[in-house]
């Protein structure tokens, strides 16, 4: 076992593992939550943003005079101001495009900000937008990922000279050897769609600026601080400590969309600076569906070198991600985030990769629940099924054949991932049992004889959590990395304190969007300190001036249940240790003689020698001279825990890109209507190993939500553009988020294989089935349509698309 795998012992617990009701709910159920738009500051003005109707055009001129004179307008910001007042956002590619928070002289996608109006209210601000005239000189557009790379394609950024933002080759193991030993090579081309998270709460920012102290105070509903507090400071050309970020206690969903750098934080800050007013901007839904962020759409060419018996010896792939009109943090992470788990759940030791990140005249990108694992597994898991059909092998059997074996954990992948723990066979078997696989296959054959199209699909995927920021540096080749400063880490911080009267208070900065962090933190602390969860108050919000955080802090990549929980346990144990020292001192005993029960500290064996914990707390605060020699007064402990497994990439480009690795087995049975192309889901089993379950009710909620999100990308949702670069899905009428009528019953199962590297054995579970469902539904529909000779290589599979695939196949035969 690699020595970084610091192992924790996991004991039985009272509160962790129980389906505790959420503390958060009381405010949210009664309309007392505090979301971004609920923040009202004195003398607050309102901004509206003028956006480009052109996908690619020069801005020849902007006339704002009429708008400026409109009653109620307080000021207008255009690219000219932005160029004077700010810098482009830094991004980790060799030649960064000049990405400002607003278009300067050129627009590169429909919806790109062109000007900001600040007015007395939002209605007036929007009235004024209609009075601004912009003189555009339209340019040819490039919309297709592969065309973007051709020398003839219109170039978005002259300073780059092509539309390729990032390009690298990787070699792991010996692919030539794999090809030599292989009996056959199976190839596929896969296109994953551009789709997003569309939280029901859109983006929002409130900014104010003090010209005398030159301080910004910025409220936003970003899922960080993460790297973006620093990046926005650089863009604004100010020191970090001159910019205070405050995130309200409640965020109305994020799912990754709110972890992409949003330019509006800088843009509205500059609007506040120029007008000298407190400025509020709340993104409307149309703005969100034009210009917020999506996951990357990706074209993947992937091939497998396989033996007749189904053993996969190696993979070769070329993946091209599209980050749209610009590239911004955390991209180019899209191409590198899943490096450590690139070979999925399988023992594949040889791999050749080519990765490209290109630009087209489309909306920009950010992580979308499962950050590019959806893209990866759609191609990998589809390819596994193609291999199976080439070999006439059962699609379950081929997976069992290639799985990493339980006794191989911790397992280091060819690409450097360190899989901490797992039993993939057990999880997958449970999924098979839940859909009654053997019987289902028989029914499928019967149905086919009646001309009905039933299909069974699987995806068995590794669910990586707690990204190690090191992976972003893979964008640079080893020799380039060596010149710069290495990056690594996954730290999250909490403060735990005991108040003078003995109540426990946890101060966190985990920035949840409904995952129930506060409830789980109180469960954990209750176990560690032997108190009741109701006696633990959790204050959880972001304020960069008074919370402890690091560059990695934020609610993304399913970090809470692995790294935050470990930080909480560590801090609580430090607090307990200090209390025991005080008690030992006061009781004249040794620390190792003491034990805690129901808020009381005893000397083992002599129950008369005991004291209430609150008296220990009381002493620490009220009678500080009574503390042991040299001990600090009060009861505060802080832990900023980072996973020891978060190391920089090595010279062979191997990196442990995440820290804990759960597992998901998805099994879905569909029936396709051969006349209409409609897909009906008959059975759906989703079995997960998220390590130790912290709160089963909350875990189930994460999985169910993620399944629905994955279903959206599989059948309904697409950020669609016409051939001229217009986004044609700019309302919820055309961007189809599934409703309760579209999401079927889902049979969820759990296998708990504790992680040795987290304090409680828990692994991440937030991104969850969003990674596995698109591949699984793709496989199920491909299986259903197999008798017609239809293959599935793209999503979403609308009835219209399936019908056309069926017609095409008919015309071929």
């Amino acid at each position, binding site marked *: 076992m690699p020595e970084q795998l610091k192992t924790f012992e996991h004991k039985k617990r009272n509160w962790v593992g129980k389906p505790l009701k959420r503390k958060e709910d009381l405010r949210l159920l009664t309309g007392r939550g505090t979301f971004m738009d609920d923040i009202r500051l004195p003398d607050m003005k309102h901004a509206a943003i003028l956006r480009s109707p052109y996908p690619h055009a020069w801005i020849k001129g902007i006339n704002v005079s009429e708008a400026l004179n409109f009653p109620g307008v307080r000021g207008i910001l255009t690219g000219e101001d932005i160029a004077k007042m700010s810098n482009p956002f830094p991004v980790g590619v060799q030649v960064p495009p000049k990405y400002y928070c607003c278009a300067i002289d050129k627009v590169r996608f429909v919806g790109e900000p062109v000007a900001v109006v600040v007015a007395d209210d939002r209605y007036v601000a929007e009235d004024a937008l209609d009075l601004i005239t912009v003189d555009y000189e339209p340019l040819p557009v490039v919309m297709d990922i592969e065309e973007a790379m051709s020398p003839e394609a219109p170039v978005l950024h002259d300073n780059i000279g092509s539309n390729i933002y990032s390009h690298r080759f990787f070699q792991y193991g010996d692919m030539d050897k794999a090809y030599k030993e292989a009996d056959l090579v199976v190839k596929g081309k896969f296109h994953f769609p551009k789709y997003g998270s569309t939280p029901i709460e859109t983006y929002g920012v409130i900014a104010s600026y003090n010209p005398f102290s030159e301080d910004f105070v910025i409220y936003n509903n970003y899922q960080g601080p993460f790297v973006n507090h620093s990046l926005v400071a650089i863009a604004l050309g100010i020191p970090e400590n001159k910019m205070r970020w405050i995130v309200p206690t409640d965020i109305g969903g994020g799912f990754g969309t709110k972890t992409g750098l949003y330019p509006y934080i800088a843009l509205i800050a500059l609007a506040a600076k120029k007008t000298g007013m407190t400025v509020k901007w709340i993104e409307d839904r149309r703005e969100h569906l034009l210009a917020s962020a999506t996951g990357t759409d990706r074209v993947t060419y992937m091939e497998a070198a396989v033996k007749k018996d189904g053993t996969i010896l190696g993979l070769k792939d070329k993946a091209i991600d599209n980050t749209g009109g610009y590239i911004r943090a955390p991209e180019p992470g899209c191409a590198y985030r899943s490096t450590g788990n690139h070979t999925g759940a399988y023992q594949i030791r040889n791999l050749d990769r080519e990765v490209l990140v290109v630009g087209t005249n489309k909306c920009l990108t950010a992580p979308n629940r499962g950050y590019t694992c959806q893209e990866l597994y759609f191609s990998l898991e589809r390819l596994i099924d193609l291999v199976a059909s080439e070999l006439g092998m059962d699609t379950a059997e081929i997976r069992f054949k290639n799985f990493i074996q339980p006794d191989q954990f911790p397992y280091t992948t060819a690409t450097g991932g360190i899989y901490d723990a797992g039993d993939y066979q057990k999880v997958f078997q449970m999924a098979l049992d839940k859909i009654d696989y053997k019987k289902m296959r028989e029914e499928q054959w019967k149905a086919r004889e009646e001309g009905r199209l039933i299909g069974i699909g699987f995806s068995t995927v590794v669910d990586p959590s707690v990204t190690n920021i090191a992976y972003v540096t893979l964008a640079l080749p080893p020799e380039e990395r060596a010149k710069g400063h290495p990056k690594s880490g996954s730290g999250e911080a909490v403060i735990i304190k005991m108040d003078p009267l003995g109540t426990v208070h946890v101060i966190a900065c985990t920035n949840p969007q409904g995952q129930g962090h506060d409830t789980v933190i109180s469960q954990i602390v209750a176990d560690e300190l032997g108190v009741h969860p109701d006696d633990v108050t959790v204050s959880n919000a972001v304020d960069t001036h008074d919370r402890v955080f690091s560059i990695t802090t934020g609610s993304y990549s399913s970090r809470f249940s692995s790294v935050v929980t470990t930080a909480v346990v560590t801090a609580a144990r430090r607090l307990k240790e200090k209390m025991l020292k005080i008690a030992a001192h006061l009781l004249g005993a040794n620390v190792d003689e003491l034990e805690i029960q129901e808020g009381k500290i005893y000397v083992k064996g002599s129950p008369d020698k005991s004291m209430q914990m609150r008296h220990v707390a009381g002493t620490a605060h009220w009678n500080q001279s009574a503390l042991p020699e040299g001990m600090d007064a009060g009861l505060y402990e802080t832990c900023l825990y980072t996973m020891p497994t978060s190391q920089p990439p090595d010279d062979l480009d191997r990196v442990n890109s995440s820290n804990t690795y759960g597992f998901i087995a998805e099994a879905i049975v569909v029936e396709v209507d051969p006349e209409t192309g409609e897909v009906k889901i008959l059975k759906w089993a989703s079995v997960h190993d998220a390590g130790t379950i912290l709160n089963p009710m909350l875990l189930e909620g994460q999985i169910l939500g993620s399944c629905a999100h994955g279903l959206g990308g599989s059948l309904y949702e697409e950020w669609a553009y016409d051939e001229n670069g*217009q986004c044609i899905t700019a309302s919820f009428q055309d961007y189809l988020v599934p409703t309760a009528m579209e999401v079927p019953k889902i049979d969820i199962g759990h296998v708990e294989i504790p992680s040795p590297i987290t304090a409680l054995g828990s692994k991440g579970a937030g991104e969850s089935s969003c990674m596995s469902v698109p591949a699984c539904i793709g496989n199920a529909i491909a299986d259903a349509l197999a008798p017609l000779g239809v293959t599935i290589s793209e999503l979403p599979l609308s009835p219209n698309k399936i019908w056309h695939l069926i017609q095409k196949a008919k015309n071929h035969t």
Partner: protein
Amino acid sequence: MNIEGKHKFLASQEQIWDLFMDQKNLEKAIPGCEKMEEREPGKYDVLLKIGIAAIKGTYTGKIEVVDPEPPNRYRLLGEGSGSPGFVKGEATIEFSQEGQHTIVSYQGDMQVGGLIAGIGQRMIGGIAKMMAGQFFKKMAKELKSQQ
């Protein structure tokens, strides 16, 4: 977005050609055309007030007749922009005699940009076709009034 269609007129090809070359007729027939001024031969500045039900938009733009091959064909270029976004189109108009009738057929590509494109994709194609239909109906009316 491709647009195409044809319309039958009861008149000679030369008559119809002249009909289509006459600014006064175009001004009357182009849906929502409020103003049409000839900048230079074959190049017009236009002001369009396009309204379907409550959906109204004002566009200022240009219309241009290029490569005329009397009386057989010409190409029509048009573009306009306004608060709802922009429209841009290019079509080949062809004239052919069938007995006493003249068939005018058009084939081209149209772009709609901005607000309408984002939220109205469901109906844009049909409405473009509808407006082309209105144009030809009005032209037929002009023809009658001149016969």
